[in-house]
C-alpha cells in the first residue's frame, strides 16, 4: 500500500516535471508543418538524393508497381532494340516486296571472291604431286601473314542468294525459259528445276552461278518478273581454305621426302616400308586436294535458289504476311524477350543481392549503433 502510494507520488511529480517546448520552437515547427516541410536547400541536393527521398516517401505497393512498370518498359525497349539489330545485317535486302522488275544488282555486288583464282594456283593446280619450290616458298610467305592480313578482295567467300518472283500463272513457262537463258548467259548451271503449270502454277530452280557473275545473274533473274523477296548471304571460308592448302603442302613435302628415302633405300624391307608410308601419304594428299577443290568450288560458284510464285496481286499484298509469319515473328520476339530477360536477370540478380546485403548490413549497423547510443 505504501509502495503504491510512493509510486503514485513519483508519477505525479514526474508529470509535473514534464517539459514543454519553447514557444518560438513550437511556432517554427508549426510553420514548417503547415508548409509541408519544404526542402531547405533544393539546389544543393543532387538529383539522386531528391529521387531517393521521393522514392522513400512512396508506399511499398506503389513502389512495387512503379518498379515493375519501369522494368517492363526497359524490357520492351531492349527487346525492340535487340530484335531490330538481330534482323539487320545477316540478311541483305530482305522482303523487298513489290520491287520493280527492272532493278539492277550488279552495281551493288561486291566482288568478294576476286583473287581466288590466284589461290587456286598455289593449292590444286598440280594434281600429280609434283610442284616447284617457288610455289612452296610463295605459299609459305603468304601463310605466315595471310590469315590475318589478307585483304577483303583476296578472301574466299561463299555466297548464296534466294529470290522469289511473283508471276502471273500464264507467264510461268515463259519466265522459266528466261531463267534458263539467264543462267546460260552467265555460264551457270541449273542443278535442279521444277515447273508446274495450271492452277498451282509455279517453278523452283536450284542454280550454281559463277561468283564473279553473280551480280549480273541476279540482275537478270530479277528482271524476269516482279521480285517478291530476295535474300543474299555470305560465308567467309578463307580460314578453312588456307588451312587445307597448308596441310596439302605439308603432305606434298612429306611425299617428296619419302620419295627421296625410297631412292636411297638399300634393302628390300626398307623400300617396302617406305612405299607403304608413301601410299598412305598420297591417299591423304588426295583427300586434302578433294577438300580444297570443294572449298574453291564453294567460293567460285554461288548457290542461287529461285522460286516463281503465282497469285493475284490483291491477295498478294495482303497474303504476303500471313498467320504463319505472325506466329513466326511472335515466336522470335518472345525468344528475344526471354533472352533479354535472362540477360537482365543475370546482371541484376547479383547486383540486387549485393544491394540487399548492403542494405541489411546498413540496417544492422544502424540498429546496433542506436542500441550502443542508448547504453553509452
Amino acid at each position, binding site marked *: 500500500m505504501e509502495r503504491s502510494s510512493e509510486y503514485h507520488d513519483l508519477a505525479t511529480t514526474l508529470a509535473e516535471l514534464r517539459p514543454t*517546448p519553447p514557444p518560438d520552437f513550437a511556432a517554427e515547427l508549426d510553420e514548417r508543418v*503547415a508548409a509541408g516541410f519544404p526542402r531547405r536547400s533544393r539546389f544543393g541536393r543532387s538529383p539522386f538524393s531528391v529521387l531517393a527521398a521521393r522514392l522513400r516517401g512512396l508506399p511499398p505497393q506503389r513502389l512495387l508497381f512503379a518498379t515493375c512498370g519501369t522494368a517492363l518498359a526497359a524490357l520492351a525497349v531492349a527487346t525492340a532494340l535487340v530484335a531490330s539489330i538481330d534482323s539487320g545485317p545477316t540478311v541483305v535486302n530482305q522482303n523487298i516486296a513489290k520491287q520493280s522488275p527492272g532493278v539492277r544488282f550488279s552495281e551493288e555486288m561486291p566482288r568478294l571472291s576476286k583473287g581466288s583464282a590466284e589461290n587456286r594456283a598455289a593449292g590444286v593446280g598440280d594434281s600429280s604431286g609434283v610442284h616447284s619450290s617457288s610455289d612452296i616458298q610463295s605459299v609459305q610467305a603468304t601463310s605466315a601473314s595471310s590469315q590475318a592480313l589478307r585483304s577483303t578482295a583476296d578472301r574466299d567467300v561463299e555466297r548464296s542468294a534466294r529470290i522469289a518472283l511473283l508471276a502471273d500463272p500464264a507467264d510461268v513457262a515463259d519466265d522459266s525459259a528466261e531463267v534458263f537463258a539467264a543462267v546460260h548467259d552467265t555460264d551457270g548451271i541449273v542443278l535442279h528445276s521444277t515447273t508446274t503449270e495450271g492452277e498451282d502454277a509455279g517453278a523452283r530452280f536450284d542454280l550454281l552461278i559463277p561468283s564473279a557473275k553473280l551480280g549480273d545473274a541476279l540482275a537478270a533473274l530479277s528482271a524476269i518478273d516482279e521480285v517478291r523477296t530476295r535474300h543474299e548471304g555470305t560465308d567467309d571460308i578463307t580460314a578453312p581454305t588456307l588451312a587445307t592448302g597448308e596441310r596439302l603442302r605439308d603432305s606434298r613435302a612429306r611425299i617428296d621426302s619419302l620419295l627421296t628415302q625410297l631412292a636411297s633405300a638399300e634393302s628390300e624391307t626398307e623400300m617396302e616400308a617406305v612405299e607403304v608410308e608413301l601410299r598412305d601419304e598420297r591417299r591423304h594428299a588426295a583427300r586434302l586436294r578433294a577438300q580444297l577443290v570443294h572449298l574453291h568450288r564453294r567460293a567460285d560458284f554461288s548457290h542461287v535458289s529461285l522460286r516463281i510464285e503465282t497469285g493475284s496481286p490483291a491477295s498478294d499484298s495482303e497474303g504476303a504476311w500471313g498467320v504463319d509469319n505472325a506466329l513466326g515473328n511472335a515466336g522470335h520476339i518472345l525468344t528475344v524477350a526471354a533472352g533479354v530477360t535472362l540477360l537482365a536477370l543475370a546482371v541484376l540478380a547479383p547486383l540486387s543481392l549485393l544491394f540487399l546485403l548492403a542494405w541489411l548490413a546498413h540496417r544492422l549497423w544502424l540498429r546496433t549503433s542506436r542500441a550502443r547510443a542508448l547504453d553509452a
Partner: protein
Amino acid sequence: MNEATIAGAGTSIEAGFDFERLYRSSRDDVYAYTIGLLRDRSAAEDATAAAFERAYRKRSRFNPEKGTARAWLFGIARNAALDELRRRSRHTQLDGEPIDPASVEEGESSERRLVVAVGLTRLGTRERELISLKFFAGLSNGEIAGVLGISESNAGTKLHRAMIKLREACDGAL
C-alpha cells in the same frame, strides 16, 4: 498551438490518417519524450523536428494494422532521438540539464520535484527513456511496447524496474 498556421498539413488525410491531428496531439509529447531521453534542449528540438519531418514524408507508409499512429510516430521519434544522440555524442557533449533549476519554485512540492529531477539524471538512458515515454509522453504500456519492439508485459516489468531505480536515485539524492 497556432491552429491557423498548420491548416495546410491536413492534406495527409488521404494517406490513411490525419497527420495534422496527430501533430497537434503529439507535438508536446514528442518534445517531452526527446528532451527526457536526450537531456539537451537543442538536441531535443532537432530530434522533434526531424521526427515530424520523417513522419510527414513516410506518412503514406503508415499501416494501422501494425499499431496506433502515436506508437508509429514515437517509433520514428525514438530513432530520430537516438540518431541525434549518436551524432552529438560524436561531436559535442550534451548539456545534461533537461529541467531548468530556475523554473523550480520554492516550497515542499518544488523540493520534491528537484529531487526527482536530480534522480532522473542519475538513471541510465534506457530507464530514462521508459520513464519519458510513460510520464512525459503519456504512452500506455501497450504503446511503449510497440515503440520499443517488446511485449506489453515486458514493457510493464521494465518500467517498474525503472521506477524502482528512480526511487532509489531520489533516496540517494536526499
